[in-house]
């Protein structure tokens, strides 16, 4: 008995340990032994082979029972005194005693006794609970059937019955609607909503509120906010100069997904691998940006491979935390010391995320590659409209045009017989040759910057080039016709194209160029053009004058494609010289009837693109060009969003010794840890397979991890307190059977009666409804001294949740009750009030103007009053009023926020212009809508904020403060007006400023109450 009493630090609370003591004296491996072994022994005798001492491992039963190198046996079941483990932990000899002194670990007497008792009882090893597929347990019997509303309540009550504790009564309706509104929308209820609920006498009154809130568009915002923490969402790239980025379209996708109640398995697949779905829609591609929200670097001088590695490691760690609840980061440098994940398996996961066509250094121009443009509905319509007009024009320009075709015939005829004018060989364009696409393993920027072969020396068409274990040779391209876009292939790749231009005398020749994306042009090895702006190819993107020498000149183009389609455009602009390329001349000289249809088209294209001077044609071409320009310009205004993409040729993945980016060891392929179910045999080992695997019915973790986080969202603490760690060092669940029941329920959603109309699996709204409908959730949160002492953290839920609101909700609530809040959903991030100079003190540089997000520009008008989830998040200097209230820094994934209580929070709620202005606007509401007597007004104000009527003593306090404040502002018009001038909104000048000021302070007082910032 004494043994178990001493395990308090290992179990969630003293109370829980006492309960176990009462129940049985049997040693429980998961609860009593596993934590000791993990804490005290595994660092030398655990899964990590590299650091294993004496060949002993204690994380597997058969290994622990087997003789080790020295011949001794650590554990002999039933015989503790003969077990080497017991002998060593009890030894007085410092050379023998375990754990050794230099490990700075020490077993307590109680722990030693537990180990001994465990071996005596047979040394049973259970598999780590979270790696065993959850099963739906039978709902237990309870002492008070009348209290039970959902199966959840049975699990909660049966546990309380064992403790001899009773549940709390149901909270008041005012409390319930405020709790529900904040939990499901992050906003407080309006007075109308409260009144409607209070007056609704029907049995379904509560459920109606729940259904209304779940259907609110603000539900999606509330749920998205939770997800933004997990996704490490931010508006800047995070490292060094911390340039701006724009993932607002992705954020809007998440809001929409929750509002549409997208099943969580589908949500998972699209967030992780939407781009890989067959015929992925724009929306699905957009969703895949989840794993592009990590920080991105472009610090001058940094080594790309080092950061590329950091991005992938971040993706692995984030994905594992969010879906698996596992701390795989530990296995980056060595085998996991506590959980069954080897270093090799870490890199197996790494391989899933290693095939994105991205650059190690990027983000200096905003979003880093790859990204897509994400038009909204109106923008899509406009694009479609432009496209159809362009298409129609193209069809016309490519079709028969009688007058032009006649002229072409005449031109052809004139060429048929050589003459001084019509066969001017003064400028001769050679046939094109090309080499590539040469795919660069470090990405397109690298390919653009580096000479991949032909740049420095005269081009030798017999030479072959080597890049990343591949050989590339020149190929002749007789089929390439000038004056049209020539399509190229390859992503993150460079293609060199080459021709000679021969002339009879030195002359200048103007050419029109276009490219997708980057382009470099050399004439006789002299660089004459370079541009690395990502773009689609079009005529006249660059006009270059070539300074030709007499005789042959070498023209070399390098077209670098970052991602998507690729191509280039070349045409002679100068009309000073007739310059017909040899391959065109060859067609002309062929009799018409012998030409292939392709040759006919090529010749027409050449004639119209280079020779034709018909005004009708010119007009047609100009119109097309104008439309194309319009489209390009319009497209530039559409926001982009970073997405995942898969390279055609996947990168190779290696185990990295000690996690160092440049220390490659064994090659590995994409795979999942052996301790978890295998990937489906028939599926490709790609991200899509990984995503589907996470939400497969066999998976023991995902469903548990997700329901636990939603439990945490509603109750303040998860059933597993360490919601980020379900491994052997994480907390054990406070109610294991309930967690498993919910996990199965979530996967199967088999209770349609409770889930409303939806019966789909992985139904998030149904899960949340199930929880908030429970009697457990509806309890009053008042606590008796006895319960406070026995269960200070409310893990047993003998009372309702009572936790401080998260940073965003505190601000949103102040804006909402004062009437300032703008309810617009989605859109770009905004910059509400922030003390001046915060960014600039950290980031200001002489060259700040070259970058974005270096200078803080405060928003104006409505954008000052948007919900806090839209506040621009600069990672190196986050919004201080959010950070002080425990919002995470968004540098890395966070699934559990701390809740601290500091004086800086008080200063913010008292002095931040947001709250001063909200107080003033709340006061204005009170004075204009809140009745006429002070009592009516105080009641109105108090109710607006807390959702309930004040008690008599509370009313007395408020009256006395109001009286004091009225005295303090009496005849102090200037002081009053100063107070009323805080914030951008003008104040209602019809009100008496002194009275208005006193009520502003009264409102500020109410906004600062503990109850205001607390959900209870």
């Amino acid at each position, binding site marked *: 008995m004494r043994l178990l009493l001493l395990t308090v630090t290992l179990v969630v609370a003293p109370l829980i340990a006492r309960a176990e003591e009462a129940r049985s004296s049997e040693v429980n491996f998961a609860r009593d032994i596993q934590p000791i072994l993990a804490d005290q022994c595994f660092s030398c005798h655990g899964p990590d082979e590299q650091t294993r001492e004496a060949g002993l491992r204690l994380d597997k039963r058969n290994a622990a029972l087997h003789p080790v190198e020295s011949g001794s046996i650590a554990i002999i079941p039933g015989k503790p005194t003969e077990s080497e483990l017991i002998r060593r932990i009890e030894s007085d000899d410092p050379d023998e005693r375990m754990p050794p002194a230099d490990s700075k670990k020490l077993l307590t007497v109680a722990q030693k006794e537990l180990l001994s008792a465990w071996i005596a009882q047979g040394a049973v090893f259970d598999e780590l609970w979270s790696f065993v597929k959850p099963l739906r347990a039978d709902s237990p019997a309870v002492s008070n059937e009348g209290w039970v509303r959902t199966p959840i309540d049975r699990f909660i009550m049966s546990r309380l019955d064992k403790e001899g504790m009773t549940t709390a009564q149901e909270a008041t309706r005012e409390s319930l609607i405020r709790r529900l509104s904040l939990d499901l929308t992050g906003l407080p209820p309006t007075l109308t909503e409260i009144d409607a609920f209070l007056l609704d006498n029907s049995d379904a009154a509560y459920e109606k509120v729940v259904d209304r809130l779940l259907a609110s568009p603000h539900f999606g915002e509330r749920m998205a906010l939770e997800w933004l923490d997990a996704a490490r969402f931010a508006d800047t790239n995070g490292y060094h100069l911390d340039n701006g980025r724009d993932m607002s379209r992705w954020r809007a996708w998440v809001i929409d997904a929750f509002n549409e109640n997208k099943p969580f398995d589908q949500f998972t697949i699209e967030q992780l691998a939407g781009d890989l779905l067959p015929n992925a829609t724009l929306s699905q591609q957009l969703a895949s940006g989840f794993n592009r929200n990590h920080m991105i670097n472009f610090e001058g*001088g940094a080594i790309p491979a080092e950061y590329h590695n950091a991005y992938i490691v971040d993706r692995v760690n984030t994905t594992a935390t969010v879906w698996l609840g596992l701390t795989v980061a530990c296995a980056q440098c060595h085998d996991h010391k506590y959980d069954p994940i080897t270093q090799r398996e870490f890199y197996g996961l790494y391989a899933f995320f290693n095939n994105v066509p991205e650059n190690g250094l990027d983000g200096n121009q905003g979003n880093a590659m790859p990204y897509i443009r994400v038009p909204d509905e109106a923008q899509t319509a406009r694009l479609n409209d432009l496209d159809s007009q362009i298409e129609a024009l193209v069809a016309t320009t490519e079709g028969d045009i009688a007058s032009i075709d006649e002229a072409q015939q005449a031109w052809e005829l004139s060429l048929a017989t050589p003459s001084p004018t019509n066969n001017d060989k003064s400028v001769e364009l050679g046939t094109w040759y090309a080499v590539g696409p040469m795919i660069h393993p470090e990405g397109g920027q690298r390919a653009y910057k580096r000479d991949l072969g032909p740049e420095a020396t005269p081009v030798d068409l017999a030479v072959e080039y080597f890049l990343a274990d591949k050989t590339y040779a020149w190929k002749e391209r007789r089929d390439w016709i000038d004056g049209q876009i020539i399509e190229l292939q390859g992503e993150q790749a460079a293609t060199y194209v080459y021709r000679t231009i021969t002339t009879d005398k030195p002359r200048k020749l103007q050419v029109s160029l276009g490219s997708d994306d980057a382009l470099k042009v050399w004439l006789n090895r002299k660089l004459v053009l370079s541009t690395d702006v990502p773009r689609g190819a079009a005529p006249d993107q660059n006009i270059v004058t070539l300074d030709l020498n007499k005789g042959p000149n070498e023209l070399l183009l390098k077209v670098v494609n970052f991602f998507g389609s690729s191509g280039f455009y070349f045409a002679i602009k100068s009309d000073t010289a007739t310059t017909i390329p040899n391959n065109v001349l060859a067609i002309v000289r062929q009799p018409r009837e012998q030409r292939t249809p392709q040759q006919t088209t090529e010749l027409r294209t050449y004639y119209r693109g280079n020779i034709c001077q018909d005004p009708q044609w010119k007009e047609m071409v100009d119109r097309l060009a104008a439309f194309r320009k319009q489209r390009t310009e319009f497209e530039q205004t559409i926001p982009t969003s970073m997405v995942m993409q898969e390279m055609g040729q996947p990168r190779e993945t290696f185990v990295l010794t000690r996690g160092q980016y440049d220390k490659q060891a064994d090659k590995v392929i994409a795979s999942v840890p052996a301790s978890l179910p295998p990937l489906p045999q028939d599926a490709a080992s790609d991200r899509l397979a990984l995503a589907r695997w996470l939400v497969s019915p066999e998976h023991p973790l995902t469903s548990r991890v997700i329901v636990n986080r939603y439990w945490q969202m509603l109750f303040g603490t998860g059933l597993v307190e360490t919601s980020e760690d379900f491994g052997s060092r994480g907390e054990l669940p406070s109610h294991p059977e309930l967690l498993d029941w919910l996990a199965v329920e979530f996967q199967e959603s088999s209770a349609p009666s409770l889930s409303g109309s939806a019966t789909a699996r992985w139904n998030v709204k149904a899960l949340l409804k199930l929880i908030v409908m429970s009697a457990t959730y509806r309890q009053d949160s008042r606590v008796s001294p006895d319960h406070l002492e026995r269960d200070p953290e409310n893990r047993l839920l003998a009372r309702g949740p009572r936790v401080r609101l998260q940073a965003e909700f505190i601000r949103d609530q102040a804006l909402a009750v004062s009437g300032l809040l703008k309810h617009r959903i989605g859109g770009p991030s905004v910059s509400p009030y922030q003390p001046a*100079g915060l960014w600039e003190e950290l980031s200001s540089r002489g060259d700040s103007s070259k970058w974005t997000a270096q200078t803080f520009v405060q928003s104006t008008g409505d954008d000052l009053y948007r919900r806090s989830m839209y506040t621009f998040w600069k990672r190196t200097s986050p919004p201080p009023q959010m950070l002080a209230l425990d919002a995470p820094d968004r540098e890395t994934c966070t699934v559990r926020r*701390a809740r601290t209580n500091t*004086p800086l929070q008080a200063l913010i709620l*008292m002095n931040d*212009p947001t709250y*001063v202005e909200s107080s003033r606007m709340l006061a204005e509401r009170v004075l204009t809508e809140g009745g006429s007597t002070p009592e009516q007004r105080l009641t109105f104000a108090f109710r607006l904020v807390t959702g309930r009527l004040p008690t008599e003593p509370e009313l007395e*306090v408020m009256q006395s403060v109001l009286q*004091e404040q009225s005295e303090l502002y009496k005849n102090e018009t200037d002081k009053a007006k100063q107070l009323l001038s805080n914030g951008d909104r003008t104040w209602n000048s019809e009100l008496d400023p002194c009275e208005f000021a006193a009520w502003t302070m009264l409102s500020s007082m109410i906004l600062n109450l503990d109850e205001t910032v607390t959900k209870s």
Partner: protein
Amino acid sequence: MDDAFQHDPQLGRDCYQKLIPYEQNSMNPLQDLTQLHTRRHFLGRAATGIGTTALASLLNPDLFGATVPTERQVGALQNLHFAPKAKRIIYLVMSGGPSHIDLFDHKPKLKEVHGTELPASIRMGQRVTGMTAGQSTFPCVSPIFKFNQHGESGTWLSELLPHTASIVDQIAIVKSMHTEAINHDPAITFFQTGSQQPGRPSLGAWLSYGLGSDNHNLPAFVVMISQGSGNKTDQPIFSRLWGSGFLPSKHQGVRFRTGADPVLYLSNPQGVDENVRRSMLDGVTRLNELAAQSFGAPEINTRIAQYEMAFRMQTSVPDLTDLSQEPQHVIDAYGIKEDGIDGGYARNCLLARRMVERGVRFVQLMHRGWDQHGNLPTQIRGQCNDVDQPSAALIKDLAQRGLLEDTLVIFGGEFGRTVYSQGRLTADNYGRDHHGRCFSLWMAGGGIKPGISYGATDDYCYNIVENPVHVHDLNATVLSCLGIDHERLTYRFQGRDFRLTDVEGRVVEDLLA
């Protein structure tokens, strides 16, 4: 070893997190409940009976100039691991990477090789940053500045640091610092958090977490930033350098700034005077007390206490930052200039002294502008003008007040600079790229052996030849000065017991007095 500091087997593990929930780990909520009731009872009468000014002083007996710290807020470490030599730290962070070659690490032989190519035997194929990787030559540069010996210790120092020369017998110069990082972001993140990648708590946050606060009216961890006058186009810094990482956010450093609001949101808004604030705050407290009675939730009492501390800070912080209380000779000693030409560093040094006097545990000054890729001679002169006099004055001032013996002062940047020139080397101009293989910093005060130089580099100031000190070693040593075993100040996050020094770090005993 004193019994009081004996090893507690439970320390350095996660037990305290389990026993003390986040919300309450600065105080015992149950105990506070009764204390607060008694105190509030008194205040309830006081608020109506006496003037608010008097009330404020009652709330805060040490408000008006008294320097005796109030009761200690207990941190996670209930007992220290050893007897502490230092109780607090002033960390003078020179952001950008000051050139050890031009300031501290005197190498007369460099004159002989000036302008010649850095031998391959010295460079040994080490990686260089992308900024000089493309350079075709790597000519060695002997500093343009003279070095002289100073003090009884005979310490060599650059002519750029005449004031530092006057304290060489009080400081220990470490010439064998090294780091793996070669770019600013990872290097300075590594220096302040023990990891090149973001996500870990900063040194000050670890101390706030481990040791708590020595003053109820001021934060445990303060940060001040100044802009160097030598180089205005400088490297950015980041809030993660004083962030709390995975520790609860209350351990993050509090930024003190110049201007009306030394601490963000400290001042009452316009139109709110002290009486208005007191009345409003009394209302908040009285209503919160009613709620506490009704709900029985101890967090409410913690919130009441935090509002009172916020109110006290509204007085204690302006009092702290009011330098008009300092005699002119002190202002002059620090070299504080009206025009703020030093970017505010001198003022921050004096503020740092005033803070440690009041029990602030960790003061972190960040002075920017040390990234001399080009125009090093001009830029570094400006930077040294900023920091030399105030830093030396700080040491002398602390010593004179008897504070140096238990205050640890550290002066240094995230890496050093290359012996070879970045860009063209001319008769009077050169630049230097980042260099992490060796660099110098100095330490003084609590627990540090004065008047020594530690560690040595080769004749090229390129490689360490004696007593290397890694960043983790430095941090281990710093913690040990404070009585903390760096392996036992841990926090469990995601299943792992993290520490400032990761899995490395060795206390450099030779540096300890």
